[in-house]
C-alpha cells in the first residue's frame, strides 16, 4: 500500500521534473544576449569564419544545426508558417526554384528592407538574381559560386602516357565526347584505375552549362522532356557510365562505381583508384580533407565548354524569425567581400563578390596541393563566364530522378524495358525517368 503511494509520488516528481527541464530548455536566455539559430547543411558555414564573428560579438550566441540536405529544406518548408523557424536558413540552389515561388517567398523576410539593396552591386549579378523571389523580394544572399574545372592526378596521367601540363591536358578534351574518349583510352592504358570517380557528375556538369534546364524561364512550364540540353547531358553521362555492354549488361564505364562523399570515396581517393574529379571550387577542399597524402600530385585543367555552375547556396531569414535584425548583421557580415575572401583562402569556396577577383590575393593565388595551379585565376574567369540558369519549382526532385536513372545504367539494374527501348539501355532508363518524374512531380 505504501509502495503504491511511493510510486505515485515518485512518478509525479519525475513528470514534473521532466517537463520542467523541457520548459527550462525553451526559455533560458539572458535578457541582453541574442541567440541566433541557424539551419544549414554541408559546409555552408565554415567554423573559423563563424568563430571570428563570435569573438567580435560576445553577446551573440550562434547555434548552427547541420542537417541532411533534403531534411533541412523539408523541415524549413513545414516550419515557415509557424513560429518554429530558425533565424537563418541556408537554401541550396536545387531548392531555390521552389522557394522563389511567390507563396513561399512571402514567408521570408525581404532583405531589401534590411539593407540588401545597398550591397547588391557587390555580388555577381546572376547569383544575386537567384536569390530574388518571384514576388520581387530579395529573399537570399548568395554564398559562393561553384565554377567548374577538372582536378586530375598528374602521376596517374603520366602512367597512361598522357601529358601532365594543364594547358595540354585541357587541349585533350575540347568537347565532352572527347572527354569520354580520353577516359576510355586512359583505362586501357592503366587497367584497374578508373578515369573519373563518378560519371553521374557529368550530368549536372553538362546540364548546367546551358541557360535553362527543366523549366522555361518565361512561361515557367516544365520543359525537361523536350529541352535538348537535358537529353544531351543525360546521354553523355549515360555513355560515360556505360561505355560498352557485354551479355546484355553494362561491362565498362569511365568511372568507378563509388558515390561521391561516401566513405569509400575518400578511401578510393587515397589509394589512387581514379584519376580525375569534376571540381567546382568547393571540391578542392574536400579533396584535401579526404586524401591529404596526395598533396602535390594533382593539377587543375578546364572542362570542355569552359565552365559550368555547380551548386551554391543562399542565406535567408524567415519572416517569423525572432531575431531578424541580428540575423541580418550576421549574414551580411559573413558574406561580405572581406569574409568571402578569407573563406576562399581557408576553405576554397569561391567568392560571389566578384570585385575581389582582380585582387592579387585571388588573381595570383596558387594552390601547392594542386601543383601550384593558379586556382584563383582559373575559377574567377570561369565565374565571370557563367550564365544564369533558370531554377524551377521541382528541380531537386527531377535531379534526383535522373540521378537514379543514371545509377541504374551504371549498376546494370535497368531491368525494365520502356517504350521501344529494351532493358539495360540508356533509352529505357531515360524513358523510365520521364515516367517517374511525371509520377513524382505531376508535371
Amino acid at each position, binding site marked *: 500500500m505504501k509502495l503504491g503511494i511511493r510510486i505515485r509520488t515518485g512518478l509525479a516528481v519525475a513528470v514534473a521534473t521532466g517537463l520542467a527541464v523541457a520548459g527550462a530548455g525553451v526559455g533560458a536566455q539572458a535578457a541582453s544576449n541574442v541567440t541566433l539559430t541557424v539551419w544549414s547543411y554541408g559546409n555552408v558555414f565554415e567554423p573559423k569564419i563563424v568563430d571570428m564573428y563570435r569573438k567580435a560579438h560576445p553577446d551573440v550566441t550562434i547555434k548552427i544545426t547541420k542537417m541532411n540536405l*533534403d531534411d533541412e529544406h*523539408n523541415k524549413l*518548408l513545414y516550419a515557415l*508558417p509557424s513560429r518554429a523557424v530558425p533565424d537563418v536558413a541556408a537554401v541550396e540552389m536545387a531548392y531555390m526554384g521552389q522557394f522563389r*515561388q511567390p*507563396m*513561399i517567398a*512571402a514567408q521570408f523576410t525581404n532583405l531589401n528592407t534590411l539593407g540588401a539593396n545597398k550591397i547588391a552591386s557587390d555580388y555577381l549579378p546572376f547569383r544575386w538574381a537567384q536569390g530574388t523571389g518571384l514576388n520581387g523580394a530579395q529573399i537570399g544572399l548568395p554564398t559562393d559560386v561553384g565554377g567548374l574545372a577538372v582536378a586530375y592526378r598528374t602521376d596517374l596521367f603520366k602512367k597512361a602516357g598522357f601529358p601532365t601540363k594543364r594547358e595540354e591536358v585541357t587541349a585533350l578534351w575540347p568537347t565532352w565526347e572527347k572527354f569520354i574518349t580520353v577516359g576510355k583510352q586512359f583505362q586501357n592504358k592503366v587497367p584497374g584505375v578508373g578515369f573519373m570517380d563518378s560519371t553521374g557528375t557529368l550530368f549536372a556538369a553538362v546540364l548546367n552549362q546551358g541557360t535553362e534546364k527543366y523549366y522555361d524561364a518565361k512561361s515557367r512550364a516544365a520543359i525537361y522532356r523536350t529541352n535538348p540540353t537535358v537529353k544531351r547531358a543525360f546521354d553523355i553521362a549515360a555513355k560515360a557510365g556505360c561505355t560498352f555492354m557485354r551479355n546484355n549488361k553494362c561491362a565498362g564505364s569511365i568511372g568507378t*562505381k*563509388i558515390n561521391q562523399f561516401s566513405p*569509400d570515396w575518400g*578511401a*578510393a581517393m587515397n589509394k589512387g583508384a581514379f584519376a580525375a574529379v569534376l571540381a567546382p571550387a568547393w571540391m578542392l577542399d574536400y579533396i584535401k580533407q579526404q586524401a591529404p597524402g596526395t598533396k602535390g600530385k594533382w593539377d587543375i585543367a578546364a572542362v570542355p565548354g569552359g565552365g559550368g555552375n555547380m551548386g551554391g547556396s543562399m542565406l535567408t531569414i524567415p519572416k517569423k524569425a525572432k531575431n531578424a535584425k541580428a540575423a541580418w548583421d550576421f549574414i551580411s557580415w559573413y558574406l561580405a567581400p572581406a569574409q568571402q575572401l578569407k573563406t576562399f583562402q581557408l576553405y576554397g569556396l569561391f567568392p560571389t563578390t566578384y570585385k575581389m577577383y582582380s585582387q592579387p590575393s585571388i588573381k595570383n593565388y596558387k594552390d601547392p596541393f594542386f601543383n601550384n595551379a593558379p586556382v584563383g585565376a582559373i575559377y574567377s574567369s570561369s565565374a565571370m563566364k557563367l550564365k544564369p540558369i533558370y531554377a524551377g519549382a521541382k528541380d531537386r*526532385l527531377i535531379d*534526383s530522378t535522373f540521378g*537514379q536513372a543514371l*545509377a*541504374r545504367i551504371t*549498376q546494370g*539494374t*535497368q*531491368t525494365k524495358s520502356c517504350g521501344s527501348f529494351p532493358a539495360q539501355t540508356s533509352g529505357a532508363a531515360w524513358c523510365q525517368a520521364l515516367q517517374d518524374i511525371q*509520377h*513524382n*512531380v*505531376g508535371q
Partner: protein
Amino acid sequence: MTAISQTLKSRKRRRMSAIARQDRVGLFYVAPFFVHFVLFGAIPIVFTTALAFFNADFQTYYEFITNHQLSVLTNAFAGLDNFRELFKDSYFWLALRNTFSIWLISTVPQLIIAFGLASLLANARLRASTFWRTALMIPNITSVLAVAIVFQQLFGRDFGIFNVLLHYVGHKPIEWVAGTIPSHFAIATMINWRWLGYNSLIFLAAILAIPKELYESAALDGASRWQTVRYVTIPQMKNTITFMLVMGTIGGLGLFVEPLTYGGGFDGGANSQFLTMTLYLYKQAFMNQRLGYGAAIGVGITLVVMIISAINFMITRSIAGEESK
C-alpha cells in the same frame, strides 16, 4: 424454484448490480489511456485516410495555412483519383513485393532457427542457461539505427567484411546494396539479428509450459522424436506461433527504418530494389511533397494489413479446428 434459491438469486443480482455500479469508476481508470489513444492513435489515422481523398500537395497545405479559406480544400477534393492512381502505380506494387520478400526471408528462417535454439535451451541439464538466454537478448536492446550503420558497413561492396571473406574464397563480390535479393537478404539479416534472441525466448517459454504428461504419454505410445514434435510440441505452441506470426507480419509490413538507413534515402535504392511500402509512403509524402497521395498509400497499407490479418485469423481458426479432431 424454492423460496431459498429465489432469495439467493435476487441477492446475487442485487450484489452484481452493486458491483457494476461500483465498477463504473473503472471508466476513469481507462479514460486517460483511451482519450490519449483516440487523440494520438485513432485521429491521425482517420485524418490520414481523409487526406487520401484530396489532391493535397505542399502548395495546397501552404495555401490553406496562409489563407485559411475553405475553398482551398474544396478545390483540392479529388475523390477516388489518388486510389485509381495507386492501383496502377507499379512502384506501389513493387514496394509491396519488396516488403513481402524481405518479410519472407526474415521470418521463415528466423522462426525455424528460433525454434531450434529454444529446443536447445529447454534442456534442464544445460549449464549457464541464464547466461545464454541473457546473451541472446543483447541484440534486441540496440537501436535500429545503430544496427543499420554497422550492417551497412559489413555489407559494403568494396570494403565490407562479407565481400572480403567472399573474395578470399574466390567468389565475386556481391552487390549487397544494388542487387535486389542480396539487398533483401542484408536487410533481413539486420532484422533477424535483432529478433532471433527475443523470439527464441518466447518459444522457450512456450516449450517449457508444455505439461510433462503429454510427453510421457507420447513416449508410452512409442512416438518417435519427429512425431513428438509434430503432434505434441507444435500444437501445444499453436498460440505462441500464431502470436509470433502476427507480430512478425505487422512489423514486417511496417518495415521502414532499416531500408531508410541502409539506402541512405527515401528511394530504397537506385532501382527501388528495397523500397518498402512505408518507405514509399514517406517518399511520396515528404520527398515529393504529395501529401494526399502519400495518405492514399497509407490507406493501401492499411488494407493490406487488414487482408493479412484476416488470412491470419482464418489460418488460426483452421488450426484450432484441426486440433479438436
